[in-house]
């Protein structure tokens, strides 16, 4: 016997006839998630009453929002975890009420997903953005080795700007970007690695210090996101890079508009695009079906893999395929 009030009376909804889907975004103003959110809102229009919550990068807050959503009578949940390991707690809340859960963008452990027949995942693998960034670095390095290997030792000397330590994306991108480069048979040497907490200002200042210390020993700047990459570019410009023949390869992740602009101007080598539109669309479509008690894939073109996951791949973006990035903002 559920304590929540009967169907179709969720408070504050514009159209109480539509099935209610409760959704949480790990951080509303995250560059990428703001696009996913828009895609979700667009797909939901007229089909479902989407109740969106901002978890403010706090897993405890998200858990509480899930309580609220269930109390409000959500028929299914679309959860963008803050902390992927917390999936079990959310399932523990949804399962007794028989509410389906669509996790998106941050992937829970496979066994957790397997433990609840109404739990699904839409998104990528966290590691993939790192892998693609690594491939991008390797490709660019091989192509420009003659110019970029300033000391000619055949090794890639890099500095790395890390996001918030402990953040799953920061950890995965840091690890897999470098590992992938190594796997491609390129020798690397880490000159410096420090956290700039996803923040452009901090990235600028770290880069200032590194440039003062290593000056032209640095051959590559790897950033966990485009924001920090932009911060590094501001520092590099101040130090005279990108004018004349002074150049520094910089890569990021996210493909934000400003980064695309930098790529076009030749100040950035590339970035990694996450397909926000399709992630948002797939999430809402699965959640809507779930809310209506239908098969989650009903009437869609998505496919589930063996882990009950719909995979939306990352795409690398460089000057050559810049239009792919731009199209994401159409």
């Amino acid at each position: 016997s559920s304590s929540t009030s009967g169907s179709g009376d969720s408070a504050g909804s514009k159209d109480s006839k539509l099935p209610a889907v409760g959704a949480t975004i790990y951080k509303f103003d995250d560059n990428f998630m703001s696009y996913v959110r828009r895609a979700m809102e667009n797909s939901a229009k007229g089909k479902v009453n989407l109740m969106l919550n901002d978890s403010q990068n706090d897993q405890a807050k998200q858990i509480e929002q899930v309580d609220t959503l269930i109390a409000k009578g959500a028929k299914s949940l679309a959860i963008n975890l803050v902390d992927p390991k917390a999936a079990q707690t959310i399932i523990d809340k949804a399962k007794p009420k028989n509410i389906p859960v669509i996790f998106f963008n941050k992937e829970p452990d496979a066994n957790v997903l397997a433990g609840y027949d109404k739990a699904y995942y839409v998104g990528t693998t966290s590691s993939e953005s790192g892998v693609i960034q690594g491939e991008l670095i390797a490709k660019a390095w091989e192509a420009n080795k003659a110019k970029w290997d300033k000391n000619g030792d055949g090794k890639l000397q890099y500095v790395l700007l890390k996001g918030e330590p402990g953040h799953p994306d920061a950890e995965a991108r840091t690890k897999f970007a470098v590992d992938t480069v190594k796997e491609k048979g390129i020798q690397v040497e880490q000159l410096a690695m420090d956290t700039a907490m996803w923040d452009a200002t901090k990235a600028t200042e770290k880069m200032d210090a590194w440039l003062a210390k290593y000056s032209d020993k640095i051959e590559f700047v790897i950033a966990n996101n485009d924001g920090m990459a932009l911060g590094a570019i501001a520092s590099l410009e101040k130090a005279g890079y990108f004018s004349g023949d002074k150049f520094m390869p910089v890569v990021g992740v996210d493909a934000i508009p400003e980064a695309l602009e930098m790529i076009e101007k030749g100040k950035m080598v590339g970035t990694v695009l996450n397909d926000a539109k399709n992630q948002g669309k797939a999430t809402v479509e699965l959640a809507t079906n779930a809310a209506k008690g239908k098969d989650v894939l009903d009437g869609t073109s998505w496919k589930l893999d063996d882990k009950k996951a719909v995979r939306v791949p990352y795409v690398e973006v460089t000057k050559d395929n810049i239009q792919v990035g731009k199209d994401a903002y159409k």
Partner: protein
Amino acid sequence: MNTQASKKSNVSKWLVDNVIYVVLILLVVGIVVASPDFLSMTNLINILAQSSSRIIIALGVAGILITAGTDLSAGRMVGLAAVISASMLQAGDYAYKMYPNLPDLPLFVPILIAMAATGLIAALNGVIVSKFHVPPFIATLGMMIGVYGLTSIYFDRPPYGAQPIGGLSEKFTTFAQRGIKVGSYEFPYLILYAIIVSIIIWVIWNKTQLGKNMYAIGGNPEAAKVSGVNVARNLIIIYTIAGLLYGLTGTLEAGRVGSATNNTGNMYELDAIAACVVGGVSLSGGIGSVPGVITGVLIFQVINYGLAFLGVSPYIQFIVKGLIIIVAVAFDMRKHAKKK
């Protein structure tokens, strides 16, 4: 002195003391008017459960505020305790255990270890404040930064690196997530823990020498000193108690969320301090009560929960929340607006 005056003062004192309760009631009424189905047992239980660990940390912070101190490191200590207890309470069959060979520990062992760690750090805060005369703001700011470093080092360890610590044992999640079934409702144990802690703290504040000394130190440290109170020792004990409460909060947070990272508890201190002030604790020391602190936390949680329940758009929620905090306290402050 004369009874008439003191009677009148009692009535006005009653009103003054109760402004915050009025605020809380007004808030609830406001939300119910906007959405009548807010008035349900589920919502009540949810709000109480969500307030529980916040009450525990707030009571720790409040003790320090009453001594005219402050504690910015509270949130980071919650994080440290969460990481420690989670790392020792992973399910035996979980694949990514931090200590693969750790035997199945009784629940109280990791909890006590976590509390000991934060208690020790908080005691250090107390020593720095009372013996080295570093202003509490700076002492605990330094500690906040340092403890985050410490937690991160503990957290980011081979073989799995900086991964959220999950796969918690069932007894742990039961302890923090389950509750007592009453009819169709389940009253979370969390509420019970908060009640027990509140009672203990109430007794300490009101019935023991330590409590009286705490108020005296905050109200007039000179007076306390010349009356023979060992200010330093009392401060250290008060900070330590706060630390133990942070440790407990951290453990409960890990259990409640089902995982812990080095970011758990981030900024909790700000919410706790704000809740204390809204609940009538004076930042200049000497004033504060347990029911006040609890009410302050409830006000915050009703705002948080209520706005989400009403479906107010997140950015607007920030604006409304900021406004309510200011208005509630402005309302409460009318008692101080010297009526001359």
